[in-house]
């Protein structure tokens, strides 16, 4: 009789436990959404990263699962390009960025590094869809910084993807802003111009 009572207690307890776990999962999800919204509002009011200051250090995983730090690029100029799988313009710009990366790397030793604001799974699906549907192989390294990550907070692209941050070999921020505007256009011309100069040099 007592065993039946214990069995009943355990069974009903298990049912309540499952409900409790599901409720807590829902609470966690709502709380993280709320944090995300709060973070976005905070970022909108925060100023952009200051030019000619040290770039904030970061640690992020690549799409291949390898941990990367800013110090891994020490002595080398890099351009962090903040992208999002939810941003159509980022997808449109991808072929142009891959070509420009090759030019900038060959001529000025500048390496492009993409930073995704979504999870590795979502980013991987996005990269695959670009490969299959657009026939574009994303060869640039991709860092995963799902919102609200410290990397996104430190570099504050303010949701304006694609957004770039040009860091020189000494780790100093040289320029930043939305891609395709202002200083980016000058840099783009410079990298493309450098290539034109080097080609003309070959013929003279």
């Amino acid at each position, binding site marked *: 009789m007592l065993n039946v009572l214990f069995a009943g207690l355990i069974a009903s307890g298990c049912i309540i436990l499952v409900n409790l776990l599901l409720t807590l999962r829902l609470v966690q999800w709502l709380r993280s959404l709320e944090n995300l919204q709060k973070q976005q509002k905070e970022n909108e009011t925060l100023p952009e990263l200051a030019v000619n200051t040290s770039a904030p250090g970061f640690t992020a995983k690549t799409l291949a699962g390898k*941990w990367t730090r800013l110090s891994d690029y020490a002595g080398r100029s890099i351009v962090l390009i903040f992208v999002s799988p939810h941003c159509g313009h980022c997808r449109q710009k991808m072929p142009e960025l891959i070509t420009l990366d090759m030019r900038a790397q060959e001529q000025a030793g500048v390496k492009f590094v993409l930073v995704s604001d979504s999870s590795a799974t979502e980013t991987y699906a996005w990269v695959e869809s670009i490969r299959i549907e657009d026939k574009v192989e994303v060869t640039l390294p991709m860092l995963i910084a799902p919102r609200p990550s410290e990397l996104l907070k430190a570099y504050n692209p303010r949701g304006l993807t694609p957004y770039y941050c040009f860091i020189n070999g000494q780790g100093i921020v040289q320029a930043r802003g939305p891609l395709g505007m202002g200083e980016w256009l000058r840099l783009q011309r410079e990298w493309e111009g450098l290539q034109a100069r080097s080609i003309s040099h070959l013929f003279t």
Partner: protein
Amino acid sequence: MLVVCILAFCRVAIALLFALAFAGKIRDIRAFQEAVVDFRLLPSNWSRKLAVVFLAMEFLACAWVVSGLLLLAGFLLATGLLMLFSAGLLTVIRRRMKITCNCFGWTDRRVSGYDLVRNAVLILCSLSGAWASVTASQNLTMGEFGVIALIAVYFVVLMTNLANIVETLRRPFYAFLDQ
């Protein structure tokens, strides 16, 4: 009888807690190592090695408490680890650092006073287990153990989600749901 019940409760609670912590961290050991580095208490390479030592200790504490072979040692190791973690968390709160705990695997929730309260309750539980392990002599029936184990599972679920539960009771999602 009460001492035996306390011992069973503490064994299940502490073993489950350390099993959860170990499983959450081992899934992404690099993230845990970076979380320990973020505490900025030791040089980076030391912190990474210490993270592995913590993991091994958590596993040992869980194994000793589950097996019952080194019950007292298991509870004391668990108490020591919880005290050490609490001291680390306290320094983070005092330095007003905004970092995540990653106590049970990756999370975006920052270290807060709730983590200290949770650890204080767990230390009390672990110490009670250590005391009960040297005084308890009887055995429980399967049914009795099942009920106590279930209560211990509830306790662990509530303790590991303490911050979310209290925050939800204090500040529901009205602002969020309005939008």
